[in-house]
């Protein structure tokens, strides 16, 4: 398995094209090349957190400040961020545009990812978080822009799920 260089670039360019200037993230394999680009880009402010729930607070601060922001994390980080999503974002009607790498699903060779992969969509549904899968590098920029737009119009968390088809070669 190798992380897709071209598709990481497509996702990053999609983020930029959506007008995003601020990113909070916790690194993981599929997000590595993407975050490298964010770090190297002078027009994007990357804030790396120690745990994903912090990013919910950072995203709320960026939203209050008026700064277009997305969150990058893997699904296990989404699990660890859940109270922040519910008790900050949803409770106060604060939008979150989350790009979530879904590890542990179809084709997953690593056992440690699998429980998380299996429950991810059920948890998103339980939290009423609208989500879409990103599989096609041609479509991902539009999906990111739509996710961001929808988070802002609905004032709620939304998730774009970055899949194996997209993130691996």
């Amino acid at each position, binding site marked *: 398995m190798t992380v897709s260089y071209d598709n990481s670039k497509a996702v990053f360019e999609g983020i930029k094209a959506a007008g995003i200037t601020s990113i909070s993230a916790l690194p993981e394999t599929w997000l590595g090349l993407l975050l490298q680009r964010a770090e190297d880009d002078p027009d994007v402010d990357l804030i790396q957190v120690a745990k994903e729930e912090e990013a919910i607070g950072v995203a709320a601060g960026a939203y209050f*400040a008026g700064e277009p922001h997305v969150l990058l994390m893997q699904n296990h980080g989404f699990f660890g961020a859940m109270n922040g999503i519910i008790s900050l974002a949803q409770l106060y009607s604060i939008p979150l545009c989350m790009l979530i790498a879904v590890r542990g699903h179809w084709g997953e060779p690593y056992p440690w990812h699998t429980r998380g992969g299996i429950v991810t969509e059920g948890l998103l549904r339980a939290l009423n978080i609208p989500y879409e899968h990103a599989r096609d590098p041609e479509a991902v920029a539009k999906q990111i822009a739509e996710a961001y737009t929808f988070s802002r119009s609905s004032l709620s968390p939304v998730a774009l799920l970055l899949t194996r088809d997209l993130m691996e070669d």
Partner: protein
Amino acid sequence: MERAKCLELIYPEIEDKLVVTIMGACAQELYDLGHRESFFYLQHAMGLASSIGLGLARHLPHEKVIVLDGDGSALMNLGTFATLARYRPSNLVHIIFDNGSLLSTGGFDSHTTAGITDLAAIARGAGIEHAVSVTETMGFGEAFVEAMERADLSVIVAHVDAVGPDIYGMDFALPENAFRFKRCVQERRAATGWKPPPRPGSVGSA
């Protein structure tokens, strides 16, 4: 030392600043001094007040951002000290009222009650240079003045009694606080010449 007294002391300095406070007792004591549109009350999500502060401070270099935290809340997000140290927002003052208690949920002892856990030492160990502990109202006032004058990230751990207000209540719903706070923040930012990005739905037809 009482938190309500500390808040009263600094209120004239913070009433025109962006303030993010934790829930319950601390939120109420601030509110009772007089609500301002620049105050955000984080009424439930423990640990995230300082993370919101970072998100604000990072994008609003012209503002001084004040975070009012508690020992129980800070203990739920110790990673925040390392994140703050890494990005070192020079315009953030992080005040932790350490009452050794989970006061707003019934006053159970917290890990800091017996004085074993030292939050200022944790902050320093995480890499925050200016992190002090204070036990007297005078000392608190001095530490606060220094923090406000310093162009660097400051953490103040204020050891206070585990007491809170008798009566609770605010005259707005939680999302309303968020909406008004956001409007206030953006108006202040716009006054610096900044233009907000277009809102969804502001171009094209519905």
